[in-house]
C-alpha cells in the first residue's frame, strides 16, 4: 500500500474533529454524573448508534472479513443469531430494571438486587476485562499504524492512547458516545464501497454462488453435524452456546454496551436503544462479511487477486487489507484506513469510559472513600480515565508478549459473562433468588468454565487437567465452556437460594419482574419497544431465510 499526502490529511481531519468534539463538550461536564453517565441526556438515535458502535471494534472488522473468507455466510450467525435476539431481549425485558432501578451501573444493580459482595465480584472482574480489551485494541492499532504508516510501535500506541485520553478526559461519556456515532458513520461509508466493488467484480451474488461451494454461501443448510461445516459447530451448540449463553451474556450484562442505553433521556428511549440499534446491526454483515466471501470468489477467478498467504496457508486476517489495496486508490485508501483507526478508537474509548465509571462508583466510592463531595468523584472519574488508559498501554505491551492473548480474552469473556447472565436471569425474573445463591452460583459457574476448559482440547488449547473430550474447533470449545458455566451457575444459584430466605417482596420493587407493577407504555404504538422488537425480529428472520 503506497500512501500519499491526501491519506495523511484525511487521518488528520478525523483526529481534528474527534478532539474538537471533546473540547466542545468539556464545558458541559459539571458533575460526576455528567462525566460518567452523561446525566441521562442523550437522544435515542445517538444512544442506539453508540450501543452498536461500542461493539464495532476493528478486531471485529478485520476478523469478520477474514471469517467471511474462511467460513462464508455462516459467519452471519454472529449477528443474526449471536446479537439481534439478545439486543431485543435486553431492550424489552431487562432495560426496565436497569434504568428503572436508578442504578448507575450494572454492578450497582447487583448491589441493589443482591448484596455488596456480588457487586464487588462483578465490578472487579469487569474492570480487569475492560483493561485487557482496551489494551488488545491498542496493541492491534499499534501494529496497524506501525505496518501502514511506518511509525514505531511505542509511538503508535502512545499517539492513539493520547487522542482517546484527550477526548474522554475532556468530555467524559458524552464525548465517547458522540465520537462513537461519528466513527460508526465513517466505518459504514469507509467500508461500503469495498463491499460493493468486490461483489460487483466477483459477478454479483449470483457469480459468487456459482464459484464457491454451497457451504460458503448458505448459513443454515450444513449445521446438522459439526463435521459438515468449516466452523465445526452443530446447530445445538450454536443456539445454546453462541445464540443464548454467550450472546445474551454479552449484550444483556456487559456494562460497556448497557452503559450507552442507560445514558438515554427516559425509559422509552433506554428500552428502544438496543432495539433501534438492532436494525443497522443486522445489516453490518453486508459490509464486513460479504467482502470476505467475495474475496474467496475473486481468488478463484484469475482476476489478479490472490488470497494473502502466510506459511503456505491463507492469512485470513489480511483479507480486508488485501481488498483495500486492490480496490482503493490513494484518497479513498486514507478514508478506509481512517475508518479502521476509528473502529479501534471506538473500542478503546468504550472500554475506558466503562472502566472509569465502574472504578469510581463501584470500587472507589463503595470500598475506598464513601462520603466524599461529588466534585471529588468527578476528579476521581477523570483520574480513572488517565490510569485506565495507562493500564491499557501496559496491557498492550503484555499482548505483545503473548501470541494467544486474543484467545485468552475470549475465554475470560466465557468465564465471566456466561455465568453472570444466569445470575441476572434469575435475579430479575425469580424473586426467590437470594444474595448467597447469586454469589455462590457466580463463583461455581466460573469454576465450571475453568474445569470444562481444563478437561477438553481444541486446536491445542485447554486440556491442562487431562483431556476427556476433543472439540473440532476452539469456537466449539468456547461455546461449550460458556454453556457449562451458565448451566452450573443456574443450578447452584437455584439450589442455594432454595435453602435460604428470600428478601421481602417490598424490597424488590423496581428490581424484579414479579414484584414491579406493570407500567403502561405512553409512547405512540410505533415507538413502543414491543412493536419495534417484533419488526426487528421479523426482518432478522427474513434475512436468515434469504441466506438459508
Amino acid at each position, binding site marked *: 500500500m503506497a500512501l500519499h499526502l491526501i491519506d495523511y490529511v484525511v487521518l488528520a481531519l478525523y483526529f481534528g474533529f474527534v478532539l474538537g468534539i471533546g473540547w466542545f463538550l468539556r464545558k458541559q461536564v459539571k458533575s460526576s454524573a455528567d462525566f460518567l453517565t452523561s446525566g441521562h441526556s442523550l437522544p435515542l438515535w445517538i444512544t442506539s448508534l453508540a450501543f452498536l458502535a461500542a461493539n464495532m471494534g476493528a478486531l471485529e472488522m478485520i476478523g469478520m472479513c477474514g471469517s467471511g473468507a474462511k467460513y462464508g455466510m455462516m459467519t452471519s450467525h454472529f449477528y443474526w443469531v449471536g446479537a439481534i435476539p439478545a439486543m431485543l431481549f435486553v431492550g424489552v425485558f431487562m432495560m426496565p430494571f436497569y434504568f428503572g432501578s436508578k442504578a448507575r451501573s450494572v454492578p450497582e444493580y447487583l448491589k441493589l438486587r443482591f448484596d455488596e459482595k456480588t457487586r464487588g465480584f462483578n465490578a472487579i472482574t469487569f474492570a480487569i476485562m475492560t483493561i485487557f480489551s482496551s489494551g488488545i485494541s491498542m496493541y492491534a492499532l499499534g501494529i496497524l499504524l506501525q505496518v501502514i504508516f511506518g511509525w514505531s510501535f511505542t509511538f503508535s500506541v502512545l499517539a492513539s492512547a493520547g487522542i482517546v485520553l484527550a477526548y474522554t478526559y475532556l468530555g467524559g461519556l458524552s464525548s465517547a458516545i458522540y465520537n462513537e456515532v461519528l466513527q460508526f458513520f465513517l466505518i459504514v461509508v469507509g467500508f461500503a464501497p469495498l463491499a460493493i466493488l468486490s461483489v460487483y467484480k466477483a459477478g454479483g451474488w449470483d457469480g459468487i454462488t456459482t464459484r464457491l461451494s454451497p457451504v460458503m454461501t448458505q448459513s443454515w443448510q450444513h449445521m446438522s453435524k459439526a463435521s459438515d461445516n468449516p466452523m465445526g459447530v452443530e446447530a445445538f451448540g450454536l443456539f445454546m452456546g453462541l445464540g443464548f449463553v454467550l450472546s445474551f451474556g454479552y449484550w444483556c450484562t456487559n456494562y460497556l454496551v448497557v452503559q450507552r442505553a442507560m445514558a438515554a433521556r427516559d425509559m422509552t428511549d433506554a428500552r428502544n436503544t438496543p432495539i433501534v440499534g438492532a436494525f443497522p446491526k443486522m445489516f453490518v454483515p453486508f459490509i464486513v462479511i460479504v467482502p470476505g466471501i467475495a474475496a474467496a470468489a475473486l481468488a478463484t477467478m484469475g482476476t489478479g487477486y490472490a488470497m494473502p498467504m502466510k506459511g503456505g496457508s491463507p492469512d485470513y486476517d489480511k483479507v480486508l487489507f488485501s481488498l483495500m489495496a486492490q480496490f482503493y486508490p*490513494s484518497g479513498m485508501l486514507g478514508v478506509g484506513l481512517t475508518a479502521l483507526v476509528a473502529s479501534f478508537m471506538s473500542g478503546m474509548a468504550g472500554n475506558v469510559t466503562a472502566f472509569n465509571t465502574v472504578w469510581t462508583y463501584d470500587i472507589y466510592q463503595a470500598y475506598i472513600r464513601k462520603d466524599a463531595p461529588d466534585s471529588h468523584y468527578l476528579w476521581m472519574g477523570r483520574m480513572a480515565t488517565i490510569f485506565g488508559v495507562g493500564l491499557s498501554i501496559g496491557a498492550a505491551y503484555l499482548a505483545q508478549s503473548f501470541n494467544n492473548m486474543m484467545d485468552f480474552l475470549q475465554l475470560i469473556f466465557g468465564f465471566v459473562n456466561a455465568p453472570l447472565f444466569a445470575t441476572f436471569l434469575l435475579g430479575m425474573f425469580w424473586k426467590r433468588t437470594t444474595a448467597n445463591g447469586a454469589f455462590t452460583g457466580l463463583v461455581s459457574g466460573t469454576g465450571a468454565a475453568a474445569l470444562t476448559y481444563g478437561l477438553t482440547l481444541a486446536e491445542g488449547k485447554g486440556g491442562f487437567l487431562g483431556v476427556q473430550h476433543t472439540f473440532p474447533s476452539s469456537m466449539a470449545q468456547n461455546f461449550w465452556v460458556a454453556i457449562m458455566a451458565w448451566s452450573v451457575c443456574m443450578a447452584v444459584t437455584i439450589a442455594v437460594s432454595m435453602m435460604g430466605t428470600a428478601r421481602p417482596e417490598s424490597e424488590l420493587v423496581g428490581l424484579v419482574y414479579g414484584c414491579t407493577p406493570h407500567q403502561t407504555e405512553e409512547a405512540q404504538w410505533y415507538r413502543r419497544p414491543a412493536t419495534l422488537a417484533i419488526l426487528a425480529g421479523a426482518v432478522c428472520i427474513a434475512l436468515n431465510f434469504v441466506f438459508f
Partner: protein
Amino acid sequence: MLDLRKPAGYFFGLLGLLIAGTGLLADFKAPMLEGNLNLCFGVFSIAFGGVFLWLSRRS
C-alpha cells in the same frame, strides 16, 4: 448539548471536498479498480454531510 449533526455534517462535507478534489486533480489508480472512485465517493460524502447539516437546521 451538542447537536452531533453539525460536526458530522462539516466532517463529511470537508472529507468529500478533499476526496472529490483528489479525484479531479490526481490520477491515483488501484489494481482492480475501474473508474474514478475518489470523485464518486467525494460527491457522495458532500451530499451525506449536506443531509446532516440540513437535518440540524430543520430542528
